[in-house]
């Protein structure tokens, strides 16, 4: 079980870094639950739909310069091909999220702003994960501004693989033990949100 807990805890950690980015922009993110106050705040254990009420899944909402956004974990999106994809952690426009809860549907990739694949080190990072994430991002259309592959480990070949433009940003060794890597991740989110909202 520890293996599964580790993967989910790593996703939660990346979600937490997104909250930190929002706070560093001077905004307090608000934690919400789909059915009621998020006490406790529940992270999905597997890919799920944004409108699912089978548990009181948590998400975060914030408004920056009049524009509202949400942060989710483990939510499925509809790619431009029509295929659905799960994003471990994502940042999306709040109105798209609300529309999909009101009229249950998978959010379209057009509403997606940032998506991160989170992989806890389990010896060696599998190259296939990098390839799969590149394919996923490719199907997410052109509105996606931030995409990153996050891991507490490092993989030299994957780092090279992510180097070309339009490929996800490699956030390797992203761990509290490497605060400078955390700050790079947080700063990228802040910069993009500032650019989008003029904040």
């Amino acid at each position: 079980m520890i293996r599964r807990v580790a993967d989910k805890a790593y996703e939660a950690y990346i979600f937490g870094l997104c909250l930190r980015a929002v706070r560093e922009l001077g905004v307090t993110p608000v934690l919400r639950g789909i059915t009621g106050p998020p006490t406790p705040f529940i992270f999905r254990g597997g890919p799920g739909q944004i409108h699912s009420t089978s548990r009181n899944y948590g998400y975060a909402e914030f408004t920056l310069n009049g524009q509202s956004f949400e942060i989710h974990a483990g939510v499925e999106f509809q790619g431009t091909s029509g295929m659905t994809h799960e994003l471990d952690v994502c940042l999306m426009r709040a109105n798209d999220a609300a529309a999909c809860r009101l009229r249950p549907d998978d959010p379209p990739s057009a509403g997606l702003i940032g998506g991160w694949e989170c992989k806890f080190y389990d010896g060696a990072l599998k190259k296939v994960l990098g390839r799969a994430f590149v394919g996923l991002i490719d199907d997410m259309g052109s509105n996606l501004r931030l995409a990153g592959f996050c891991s507490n480990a490092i993989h030299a070949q994957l780092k090279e693989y992510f180097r070309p433009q339009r490929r996800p940003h490699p956030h390797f060794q992203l761990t509290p033990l490497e605060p400078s890597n955390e700050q790079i991740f947080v700063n990228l989110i802040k910069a993009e949100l500032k650019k989008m909202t003029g904040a």
Partner: protein
Amino acid sequence: MSAHEYNTLEALQLLIRKIRDRDDSLAASLQAAIDDGKDVHETESGGRRKKKRVYRRRVALTHKEAADVAIKVLQSFFIELPCFIGSTSENFKGAAVGVPPQTGRHLPSWRYDEDQLVAEAEGLDKTLEIELRTETQILGEEQSTLSLKPIPLKLIDEQRTNLKRLAELMNTEE
């Protein structure tokens, strides 16, 4: 001559066996990390006239390297993982909890706009849980969710010491 009455391979086998008794998934992670081997660069001398050629070759780890990898994996689980939970907890502390207003209406929480919510608990610890039994899972996990509780630094330090000692015990080379 080894300082112990066992060699590194025996120590490694015992470690994996003991871990497997406690948690299969952790033992599998350890095994996979070791089985992954490593890349080395070999040089092919192409005769007198040809240039030397360097190529990549995947080889098995030595017993000492395998022991080091095993320790590294254990550090990830027993030192880094608690750090992730601690960091998550800290970052959630700075967020507020959106509570729907107390009215006669009974709407699901998400139906309220952000500005209609009462923001509470900013700066306070939040209870975080991860789902073990997913919404589509019929069989399997008994426990539906698991609480992500921060682990005291003292315990993390103890684990650091334990793993350091384990690394020393596994290193049977003089």
